[in-house]
């Protein structure tokens, strides 16, 4: 058994290209997915109705099926219905829908734990449900579930390796591509796995950095 990493060197460009794709997919998904989750959580927090039930079904279906199946369903299924979709768009859509569903559920736990007094104070001050959600409920709810949110975003980033299966040139696609050229599968996957690990660490550090600023009110405070 010998490992030879030097055969990877000619393929630095491919690795870099894949890395860029994985990173931008993750960043875009994080922003859009969290925005989607906020909307879903808001609607589901309100009175029961058709919209609330439909979004509930979306959350449950997404959480109880594999990401790769969701991806195939969108990428192969939508064109068959006459909705053309590129691999990249399908990947982004699948990732956003996935993160949105999980985050909506995470956020819901945070919203549910809002103290009753907060709602009453908001109402006594004349805030509407939407105003109260936006100005009073949302930020503390996020701060309470932030660790779960970080983990979920990392899970989605790692899960994005699957988009290689519909030929999106991400990090994993780059690895498959190199493996098919130099036949050094183990070395390639080991290096790329390490890159994913660094991305996960970086993502966590980034989130924690943002969290310290966003939730500065928690420091030295009890409530």
């Amino acid at each position: 058994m010998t490992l030879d990493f030097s055969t990877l060197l000619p393929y630095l460009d491919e690795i870099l290209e894949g890395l860029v794709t994985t990173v931008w997919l993750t960043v875009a998904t994080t922003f859009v997915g969290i925005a989607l989750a906020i909307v879903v959580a808001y609607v589901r927090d309100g009175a029961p109705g058709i919209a609330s039930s439909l979004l509930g079904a979306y959350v449950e279906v997404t959480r109880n099926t594999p990401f790769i199946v969701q991806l195939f369903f969108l990428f192969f299924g939508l064109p068959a219905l006459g909705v053309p979709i590129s691999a990249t768009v399908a990947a982004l859509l699948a990732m956003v829908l996935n993160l949105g569903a999980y985050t909506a559920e995470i956020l819901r736990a945070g919203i549910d734990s809002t103290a009753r007094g907060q709602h009453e104070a908001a109402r006594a001050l004349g805030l509407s449900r939407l105003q109260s959600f936006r100005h009073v409920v949302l930020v503390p709810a996020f701060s309470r579930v932030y660790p779960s949110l970080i983990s979920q975003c990392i899970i989605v980033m790692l899960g994005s390796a699957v988009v290689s299966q519909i030929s999106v040139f991400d990090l994993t696609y780059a690895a498959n591509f190199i493996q098919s050229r130099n036949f050094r599968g183990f070395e390639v996957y080991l290096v790329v796995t390490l890159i994913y690990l660094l991305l996960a660490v970086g993502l966590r550090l980034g989130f924690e950095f943002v969290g310290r600023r966003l939730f500065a009110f928690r420091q030295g405070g009890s409530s």
Partner: protein
Amino acid sequence: MALVVVNDLHKSFGDLEVLKGIDLEIEAGEVVSIIGRSGSGKSTFLRCLNQLEHHDWGTIHLADQRLDGGAMSPGELSQNVGMVFQSFNLFPHKTVIENVMLAPVVVKQTPRAEARQVAEQMLDKVGMLEKIDAYPGQLSGGQQQRVAIARALAMQPKVLLCDEVTSALDPELVGEVLHVLESLAAEGMTLILVTHEMKFARDVSHRVVFMHHGHIHEAGDPQTLFTQPKTSELSQFIASIL
């Protein structure tokens, strides 16, 4: 006509009738303390006055305007009736000044500069001007409650409701909050307080209302009420808290 006119107010939670027909008139500038045992319906009554609870029967008028039954939007309500809670309920993620400015800016659509001016004025009134950029978590209970009072006042309500505002405070912090309420009373603010502070009820309020089993059992000026209770229920209550 009186500023607040409450007519035959009824409220039940399920089978439990908590308010069994409350009639009360409160003049502008009057300070009214509501006392009574827990479960007597006094907090529920207070919460009906700004529609945190919706009563089943009866009417509430404020300055000749119907207040209840959806006659006023939440925004209008908050500009007529302010409320301070037992547990402060400040918004933990907003600084002191942001807490006070939120409703004027969001609900009343006051321009920020103007809202800030009003907020500073109110915070000055409660002696919290120097803590303007602190978060609630960095303040003592008494300080938080003073900010909560400023927050309610910033909507410039005609009446301020106080629901046991000192009950969650350490004894040594009660004084600073009562002091603020006293100065508000002196300025002519209309105050309706549910309170356990009998000394405050006696010294500061113009009228004391004793609630018992969902009724106003006895009411009158504090001196007479405390020294010559007419009913055995009130004399027992007074005896139990002294």
